């Protein structure tokens, strides 16, 4: 009975190891897929751990619950119905049960771990993992994005809101008149209202942020710098001939901007 107990324990351990490995491989595929999705929608990459880990836990639980001796009997027809019967009657003591345990132990010697591993499936999973790793590195290096999650979130937030924006025409209607010559192109004023998105690509940048050195003390030779240029130019010499009334308008305009702020 003791030998049978040890053999069954070992068999269950092997089955558990195989189930765990299968769960790890499948979990990795989901994890890498989640990372890729996070990269493509500009989400922080650590969000990918959530679906990956949840799926791994669920799959591991399912596989461990699915560890049954009947599955071993399906792989080994010689053991059909004998293994389950021997396991269910482990603690019974009689000659027939002892004989059954002996027979099952003899047949179990032919069981190898490789019988439970589906090599074709495992091979496909490994290829999938390699492909996903490659895709992840590629998408990250190219800074590829299909959708910006933050933009969508922002637009959803702003949806339906009435946002007051400073209108250049309001100042014009205040009695200034159409002075586009003075103020320049409208689009220049509008530029100040947009948020500027700047991203530094770490791979294609020439700057190496890791290269930090101490500042070197250098002595500069005389004449390295150009001589100071002193310029004294009056408004008349500069060719500017701005009438006094226009100066007042400009002054008013900037005062108005300052007051608004």
């Amino acid at each position, binding site marked *: 009975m003791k030998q049978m107990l040890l053999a069954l324990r070992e068999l269950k351990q092997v089955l558990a190891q195989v189930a765990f490995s299968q769960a790890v491989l499948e979990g990795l595929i989901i994890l890498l897929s989640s990372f890729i999705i996070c990269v493509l929608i500009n989400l922080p990459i650590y969000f990918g751990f959530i679906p990956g880990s949840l799926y791994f836990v669920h799959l591991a639980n399912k596989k461990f619950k699915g560890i049954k001796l009947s599955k071993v009997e399906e792989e080994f027809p010689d053991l059909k*119905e*004998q293994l389950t*019967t021997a396991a*269910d009657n482990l603690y019974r003591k009689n*000659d027939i049960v002892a004989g059954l345990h002996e027979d099952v132990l003899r047949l179990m010697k032919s069981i190898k771990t490789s019988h439970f591993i589906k090599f074709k499936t495992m091979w496909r999973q490994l290829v999938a993992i390699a492909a996903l790793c490659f895709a992840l590195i590629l998408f990250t290096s190219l800074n590829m994005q299909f959708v910006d999650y933050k933009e969508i979130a922002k637009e959803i937030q702003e949806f339906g809101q009435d946002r007051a924006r400073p209108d250049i025409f309001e100042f014009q209607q205040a009695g200034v008149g159409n002075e586009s010559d003075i103020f320049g192109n409208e689009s220049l004023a509008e530029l100040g209202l947009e948020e500027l998105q700047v991203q530094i690509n770490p791979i294609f940048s020439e700057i190496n942020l890791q290269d930090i050195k101490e500042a070197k003390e250098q002595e500069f030779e005389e004449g390295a710098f150009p001589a100071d240029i002193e310029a004294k130019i009056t408004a008349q010499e500069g060719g500017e001939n701005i009438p006094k009334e226009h100066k007042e308008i400009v002054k008013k305009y900037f005062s108005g901007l300052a007051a608004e702020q």
Partner: protein
Amino acid sequence: MASIDNIKKTFDYISRELDKVIIGQDEMLRHLMVGILCDANILLESYPGLAKTLAVKTLAQLLDLKFSRIQNTPDLMPADVTGTYIIEEGGGKRGFVFQPGPIFANIVLADEINRATPKTQSALLEAMQEKQVTVGNKTFELDRPFFVLATQNPIEQEGTYPLPEAQSDRFLLKVKITYPSEEDEIKIVNQYAEDVPVPELKPVIKKASILHLQKLTRQVPISNDLKKYVVDLVTKTRKKKDLITYGASPRASIGMVLAAKARALMDGRKYVSKEDIHTMAYPILRHRLILSFEAERKNMDVDDVIKSLM
């Protein structure tokens, strides 16, 4: 202890010896052996002339067991079955001495049990259940192993007292005997209509070995899944109201597991297989189900209904 292989060889030898005398009734003979191993009783349903008496008599010979036959008739009294007290005179003294009836044997063939009155049937059934007989105020234990083979004729039901369901439930198996095939019937004719001596059979095993085999039968292990399968099957008979009016009791579950174990032992296996359950389900459940009108309307017999449950 005899190994399982030796047990299988013994049963194979018994089968071969039986085949010398009984032709074309292998299934019946196997069921008889199952009944003996389970220490239970069997109900045989067959037309006359199908070697029921010969089979049981031959089996008793091979197993070295005492055989007796009770021909049930409407005027048969319980005392005719169990025995009675008679006055005996000896040494100048008279006294009551118990004269045991035909039930005091190891294998009892109760022919046409449905022809006996309910009172006589109950005397036999009490002996079957309790393995003892009460006459007057004294109880007599029956010799072990004790095995009753009761027969019923499916035709000529006039003037009979069919066994109530509660009583037929006490039989482990209900075996249906069919007519032999043409080839087998020719062999029967050749053996019994010609000047061919009937082979004399010698006992194969002793009474004590049979008792030991009965004990071994209960030791054959069965998996929990199969036990659950048996219980589910019997439970289904109670739930399938469209085809079955009254289903089987837990006695059927016990019987099915025991019968499957006996079959496994006879086949030389140390475990019960699903095939054993499927094979024994029919004789176990046949007499325990009362079919509904819907089943009759669909032209389904008991075996068809049992098949649909599996």
